[in-house]
């Protein structure tokens, strides 16, 4: 099929297209969650779905995160491929039991009898002076749990490709996007395509330092890398994309080449994704390091409201640049 490869659409419409295409292809796919009818909740990610597929498969729900997440998991156990959306990750905490106790364990604890092909779509909706319970990025929580895969696309292309892969995966996948990325435009092929879960990607080749970044921090890392050119530092930027499983091969290969690594993840530092990548590098590439491993993350504090505090809270390219400079002192 000769599609227009140069077509550009927004990140949120890339998600929308993935949903439309999978819903069309596979009658076992359905979407459930609070606000799927409402742009107020889900932006334009669910545009046109209810008109096309009806309320039988596009299900707006009462505010019952626990039962609704459980229902998605149960439907997956019963042979469907549900996508359950949580328009704010914070509110998804009521649904942790079906995710962690049931979905993650189900395939293992019944000896491979019953897979759970459910997608838990969690939206990080941070910033804007929204405070501690409207801002959380909890990817590390889920990457800790055996049996869950966790992905965080940073580009419109990956948002579509990773959502399609997540829906087609036989395992529970936590698909985490970020409202800060929703208006970002990028090339997105019209056809159905897949980004393999477990594969990171080099967004910028470099030889002096590896900057591994998740989600929107990847864009900050790219900008930082451009600025660092002036300092004659040639940074390699890796978009992690898959929080679990980690693309160990690519990460190790890059660090072995550059000898330096910074991990940028806009979530809490302690016990976070950056800590996990750091441990991997220490265990498997220690001898190649020319400098300590460095992390750029959120301070270990709840998200504040006040603009001065909020500005101090979220890391930017400046934090990455400062961290890189330290390693070259």
């Amino acid at each position: 099929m000769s599609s227009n490869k140069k077509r550009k659409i927004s990140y949120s419409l890339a998600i929308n297209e993935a949903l439309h295409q999978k819903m069309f292809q596979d009658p076992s796919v359905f979407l459930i969650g609070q606000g799927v009818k409402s742009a107020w909740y889900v932006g334009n990610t669910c545009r046109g779905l209810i008109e096309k597929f009806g309320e039988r498969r596009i299900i707006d729900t009462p505010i019952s995160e626990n039962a609704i997440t459980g229902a998605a998991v149960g439907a997956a156990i019963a042979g469907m491929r549900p996508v359950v959306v949580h328009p704010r990750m914070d509110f998804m905490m009521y649904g942790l039991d079906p995710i962690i106790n049931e979905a993650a364990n189900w395939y293992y604890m019944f000896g491979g009898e019953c897979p759970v092909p459910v997608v838990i779509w969690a939206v990080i909706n941070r910033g804007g002076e929204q405070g501690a319970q409207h801002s959380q990025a909890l990817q590390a929580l889920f990457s800790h749990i055996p049996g869950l895969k966790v992905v965080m696309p940073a580009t419109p292309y990956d948002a579509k490709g990773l959502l399609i892969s997540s829906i087609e995966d036989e395992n529970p996948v936590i698909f985490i996007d970020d409202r800060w990325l929703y208006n970002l435009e990028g090339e997105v092929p019209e056809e159905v395509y897949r980004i393999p879960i477990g594969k990171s990607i080099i967004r910028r080749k470099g030889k002096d330092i590896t900057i591994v970044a998740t989600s929107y921090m990847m864009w900050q890392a790219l900008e930082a890398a451009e600025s660092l050119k002036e300092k004659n530092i040639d940074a390699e930027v890796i978009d992690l994309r898959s929080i679990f499983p980690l693309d160990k091969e690519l990460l190790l290969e890059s660090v072995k080449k550059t000898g330096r690594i910074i991990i940028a993840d806009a979530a809490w530092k302690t016990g976070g994704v950056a800590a996990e990548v750091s441990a991997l590098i220490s265990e498997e590439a220690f001898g190649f390091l020319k400098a300590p491993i460095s992390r750029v993350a959120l301070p270990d504090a709840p998200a504040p409201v006040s603009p001065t505090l909020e500005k101090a809270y979220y890391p930017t390219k400046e934090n990455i640049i400062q961290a890189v400079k330290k390693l070259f002192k």
Partner: protein
Amino acid sequence: MLRIRLCEESFVAPILKKEFKGPVHLYVGEEAIATGVCAALKENDLIFGNHRSHGHYLAKGGSLKKLIAEVYGKETGCSKGRGGSMHIIAKDKGFLGSAPIVAGTISLALGAALAIKIRKEKRIAVTFFGDGATGEGVLYESLNFASLKKLPILFVCENNFYATHLPLREFRLKDNISGIGLSFGIPSFRVDGNNVLEVFETAKRIVDRIRKGKGPAFIEFRTYRLRGHVGPDDNIQGTHTDIRPKKEIEKWKKKDPLKRFKQYLLRKNTFTERELEKIKKEIEREVQEGHSFAKKSAYPLEGEVTKYVFK
């Protein structure tokens, strides 16, 4: 019923001998509920269990020897030794799994009912949970959603009057579990869970109603576990678990569903005493064979500890 009873009692000796160590929650005394409800179901109806689900598994048609092997943690068990007594499954019989997080499988059954509705099938889903689960919020969320979407689901509460150690009167103001569904517009019933015929007849009527697309229903079956919460310890007052008055246990022993049904069968001349004895002997042999099979079976290989984390 007798098959469940004999299977359950057969675990007592190996538990005491520590042939396996994981928790085993015996269904002794409650057999009429699984038996009666599952007799009202079809093979392709979907059910979810809880921590005390050997009875549901067997009544839905799960293999007895695979159950016993699973309790022993063997590779030949229904969950290949990964699950044990609390995690049993017979997918081809519509028993989609059991799990001990209290009320944790209610929403899973809700999801199965949703799947059935989306696929426009004639099946129904059943969730079995205990009186303890009535303290969990997810039950109420599930009742609301089931009612709202008219899902084909039967909520079965097996009220044995104890949430592990705590008697009902200490965790609910009133003995009114059957009323829970009513505020969600769900037809609700209270049934003697120790009378297998009454269980079956009520379940049959209600299951047929759900199958016709009339939405969810709720049944409280009143029963009693003749054993304690877990294992062969009967939780008698004065013993170390010190929970239940001996008198109370004696009172319920008189209402033993097996005794009552046996008397019924003899009274109606459906079976003679000798015929019943013969059936019992056959089941005893089957259970013994199950234990021999389990003991002879191999444990999973050490090298396979991470097998089945992902498909």
